[in-house]
């Protein structure tokens, strides 16, 4: 298609219209300032983190943030739910663990191969199940995650069964990644990269297409958006990101159990994306931070963690249905006027 076929008689350009149009584009500041702030904060954080425990807390937040951002592309932007994403995370984690432990592969090649295999699997599954809508899709993805968990639990000769298995350190370019302080910059870098890439994506024609198909699938198709292809590609993208994060997390933790792929973990990921804010990248970052910290914060309430966790979920969805970050952003904007 070429612009040449635009009948020039339709619509007229005027400086006012052009100015009004350009004013709607997100400005440099709005788009990049928060990212720059995030990068600076992450760079300075080691100055104030007192010990390995705190590094660990932050690393867990960072890893979850990347996962939540990728999942939010699917749920928040594309409007497709997945209740089985921890399955892909688990496959990545165990892929790396098994290939490096039992088959002496190098960590980077194990990570790559796991990611590619998960990508293929996700693609196959997506072609079939993304035809499903709403609850049927929820059921299918949920089932997928549970199947993965059960396989990981039962194939004990490879996976160590329910007790889990240990994973060696990651070596890359002769560098040995070991300990919280070494892993911290890796995860911090990944978060910044994820925020930048996802930010670009959602503002691109592809991102617009995703949001459009969420709003009205038939309208999107009529303007030429291949909705099936977009859903599939985003599903694969988020699955591959989950697999890569799974591999890295496995090496970082040094020990994994089938719980990494559990329904509970899947729900946790969805919750981060949704509570933080659907279709909001910063919401995902915030959601990841909140839900990663919550168990620690609630540890004082002996026994009541689950209850409070549940109450927070329900209350957020009722009182801030778009999620915390978008709802607050709206409030602030209204205050500002």
């Amino acid at each position, binding site marked *: 298609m070429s612009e040449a076929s635009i*009948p020039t008689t339709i619509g007229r350009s005027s400086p006012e219209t052009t100015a009004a*149009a*350009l004013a709607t584009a997100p400005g440099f500041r709005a788009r990049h300032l928060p990212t720059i702030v995030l990068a600076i904060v992450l760079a300075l954080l080691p100055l104030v983190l007192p010990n390995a425990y705190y590094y660990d807390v932050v690393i867990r937040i960072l890893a979850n943030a990347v996962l939540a951002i990728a999942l939010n592309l699917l749920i928040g932007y594309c409007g497709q739910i997945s209740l089985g994403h921890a399955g892909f995370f688990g496959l990545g984690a165990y892929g790396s663990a098994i290939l490096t432990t039992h088959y002496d592969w190098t960590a980077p090649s194990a990570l790559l191969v796991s990611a590619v295999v998960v990508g293929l699997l996700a693609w196959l599954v997506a072609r079939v199940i993304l035809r499903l809508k709403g609850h049927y899709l929820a059921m299918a993805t949920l089932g997928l995650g549970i199947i993965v968990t059960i396989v990981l639990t039962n194939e004990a000769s490879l996976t160590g069964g329910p007790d889990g298995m240990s994973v060696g350190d990651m070596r890359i370019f002769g560098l040995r990644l070991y300990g919280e302080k070494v892993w911290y910059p890796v995860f911090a870098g990944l978060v910044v990269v994820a925020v930048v890439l996802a930010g670009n994506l959602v503002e691109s*024609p592809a991102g617009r297409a995703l949001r459009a198909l969420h709003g009205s699938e038939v309208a999107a198709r009529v303007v030429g958006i291949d909705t099936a292809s977009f859903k599939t590609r985003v599903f694969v993208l988020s699955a591959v990101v989950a697999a890569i994060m799974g591999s890295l997390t496995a090496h970082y933790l040094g020990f994994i159990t089938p719980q990494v792929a559990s329904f509970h973990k899947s729900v946790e990921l969805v919750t981060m994306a949704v509570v933080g804010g659907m279709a909001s990248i910063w919401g995902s970052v915030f959601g990841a931070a909140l839900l990663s910290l919550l168990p620690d914060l609630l540890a004082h309430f002996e026994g009541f963690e689950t209850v409070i966790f549940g109450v927070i979920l329900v209350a957020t969805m009722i009182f801030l249905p778009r999620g915390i970050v978008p709802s607050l952003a709206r409030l602030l904007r209204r205050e500002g006027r």
Partner: protein
Amino acid sequence: MLRVENLTKAFGGVTAVSGVSFEVTKGTIHAVIGPNGAGKTTLFNLITGVYTPSSGSIVFEGSEIGGVAPERLAKRGISRTFQNLQVSMNLSAIDNVMTGAHLGLNSGLLAGMIGLPDLGGRERATRIRAAELMEFVGCGAYVAAEARSMPYGALKRLEIARALMANPRILFLDEPAAGLNHTETHEIEDLIAALGKTGITVVLVEHDMKLVMNVSDRIVVLDYGKKLAEGTPAEIRVDPDVVAAYLGAESEGV
């Protein structure tokens, strides 16, 4: 440019469109009219690929398009609006219009992530063009608005702008004036007439007879899924079958 032959669509027991044939000449404005439930929207859905015909054929510029998916038809220059609004309320107004340019832009995920489509000012040009079209269809006041905060009438125009953004060769408008007041209906009439002058082929479904009679070159009348009559506005106005069908519908209070 478009030839529909013996087109039929049945939903279970209901035959919504039954053996309809007609032809649309390039560069003309064609209207499809008929009482509620006559099958007009279904006809549009068949031609634009939303539904697959039960039988019959649809030939567009020499090739059969019956059952071809809407996204493939978009590439061939078929565009449309909807009777019940299909606007993405989670997008801004201008983003909705910009989606119309989807096929002309690089929509790869990886390309999008590294910011490729922005290069060379394509996005910028698309945005400006979208604002121009919004102005053209008469919702220029909403360039900076969120779709969900727009009134109904403006959203109907927004759909037209989005459809135009795709540079269609043929444009289907399903009840563009439905729910609009007198003045707005007039403006839509002028808009359709203006579109016709630019050489775009327009096919429209509309209940407002004054509008239809004023802008159309040819009219097809459907009743209970069947073609009741076809002709110029002058011919349709005096067609006894049409008059009977409409009077009948009115006396039933439909």
